[in-house]
């Protein structure tokens, strides 16, 4: 696998940064890949725009910024509007069906959209796992990392108290992806 650049974008509180850290950790600690994760903050620290980038690669990563992502995940309208132009032609676009209206997509991309937020509320009664559903979906669609690595990474990062719930949400997201 050559370098793959992923950009995850949304607004504060949606958990996109945690998702990117899980991805990076899984890749670089358990999948024997290289990964670099960076993030930029909105104009104020509270509730603003969030954008995080992660590169996964088999070779050492020199340039750490994703100027033109291979994969763009946008789970807020503003995020989509702002970042869609950067997405590579032929890249993958993943959005939240309810929160993002992609309008007239002129770009040649593979677009998947799913109700991460709604499913989290409906199926888990816990809005906060929407990022895990999204993460499972992304992993299944892109095969960036292995399931085993993902599992270990969340075990490292999440407290045992919430591990099970989050793992279920990931599994759920993967299933969504494989059936959608």
């Amino acid at each position, binding site marked *: 696998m050559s370098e793959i650049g992923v950009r995850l974008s949304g607004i504060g509180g949606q958990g996109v940064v945690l998702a990117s*850290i899980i991805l990076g*950790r899984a890749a670089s*600690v358990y999948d024997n890949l290289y*990964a670099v*994760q*960076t993030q930029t903050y909105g104009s104020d620290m509270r509730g603003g725009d969030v954008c995080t980038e992660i590169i996964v690669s088999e070779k050492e990563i020199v*340039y750490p910024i994703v100027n033109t992502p291979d994969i763009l995940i946008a789970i807020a309208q503003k995020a989509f509007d702002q970042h869609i132009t950067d997405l590579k032609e032929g890249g993958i676009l993943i959005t939240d069906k309810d929160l993002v209206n992609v309008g007239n997509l002129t770009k040649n991309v593979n677009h998947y959209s799913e109700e991460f937020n709604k499913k989290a509320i409906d199926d888990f009664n816990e809005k906060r796992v929407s990022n895990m559903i999204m993460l499972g979906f992304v992993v299944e669609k892109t095969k960036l990392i292995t399931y085993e690595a993902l599992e270990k990474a969340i075990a490292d990062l999440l407290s045992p108290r919430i591990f099970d719930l989050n793992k279920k949400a990931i599994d759920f997201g993967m299933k969504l992806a494989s059936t959608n």
Partner: protein
Amino acid sequence: MINNSKTNKTDFLQGNIACAEGAIMAGCKFFAGYPITPASEIAHHLSKRMFEVDGTFIQTEDEIAAIANIVGASWGGVKSMTATSGPGISLMQENIGLAVATETPCVIVNVQRGAPSTGSPSVHLQGDILQSKFGSQGDYQIIALAPASPQEMFDFTIKAFNLAEQFRTPVFVLSDSLVGHMRERVNFPLQEELILSERKKLEHYQGIHQKIFLDEEVAPMPVFGKGLKANITGSTHKEDGFRNVSDPKIMDNAIKKLTNKILKHKEEIIEINEHEIDDAEVAILSYGLTSRAVLETVKIARKNGIKVGSFRPITVWPFPEEEVEKLSRRVKTIIVCENNLGQLFPFVKSAACEHCKVISLPPKVLGTLYYPEEILEKIKEVI
């Protein structure tokens, strides 16, 4: 210094956390700091970790107190560190001067942010390069290392402690917001394989005129509480520590000895990463995170058959004058890439101008990492 082949642990860490863990591996037992974006995570982490390793963490009333605390602790015989960003460094300037003048080993981490003034706390900029060297009053030398990754934040923090101990001097780790917050794999070396430096200590009291300062070979340092009767002052002093504030000859000696203590050992201190320089016509000089954009550029340029190489000072200070001069004899052009308005450029030009062309190329938008294309364009122009 670090043998990365055998590691006891691999982690995926933020640069700031890697720095904190590096400090612990280096034997740091005292951290004093005041929160500031984008350096706060170092304090957060060490507020827990320091006590686990029998050390001390203190959040001081301000940055002036933070630097004062670590200098005080250093005279108590422990390795000490503070971490802040540009505004904090500005406040520390007076006591950084005291640390230099009293030859106190300590480590100062500056996770640079958008400046001047309060600026943009989370924007990546290399704006404090000259501030690290010239911010306090008077002539002095400082050591500063510029990391470009979490692994380097870990490694260079250890290196900073080693240099501080070897040369009895404050050492800067000059990171920035992007490196500090970036996450990447960090390999932890085995503690046993790590070579750590310890300060040359004064063993026994040697009389009122014992020589404990101003030795170009680094005078032994008395530690407090051991009956060594340390006589320390930030005023102009002689080798034995006694103050004399009227005789210019004594001041001349003090300034020159302090300076030479670093300059005489430049070769030991200075580390440079060269990449594809051997046959290069153009060398790109950069440091810190910017060097990763440069390396990417070199990769692309080489693919296009352009003979270009990267010259990266790990040690920003002392400035690698001789090394740059040597470089200037090997290439036709040096392009200096800095994420600022060209802070090191005059120093590079002054060192290199007799033998090659020197060009400054700040990024189109300060506070962003160069696009390799920007640099490539410039290379093509000058070739």
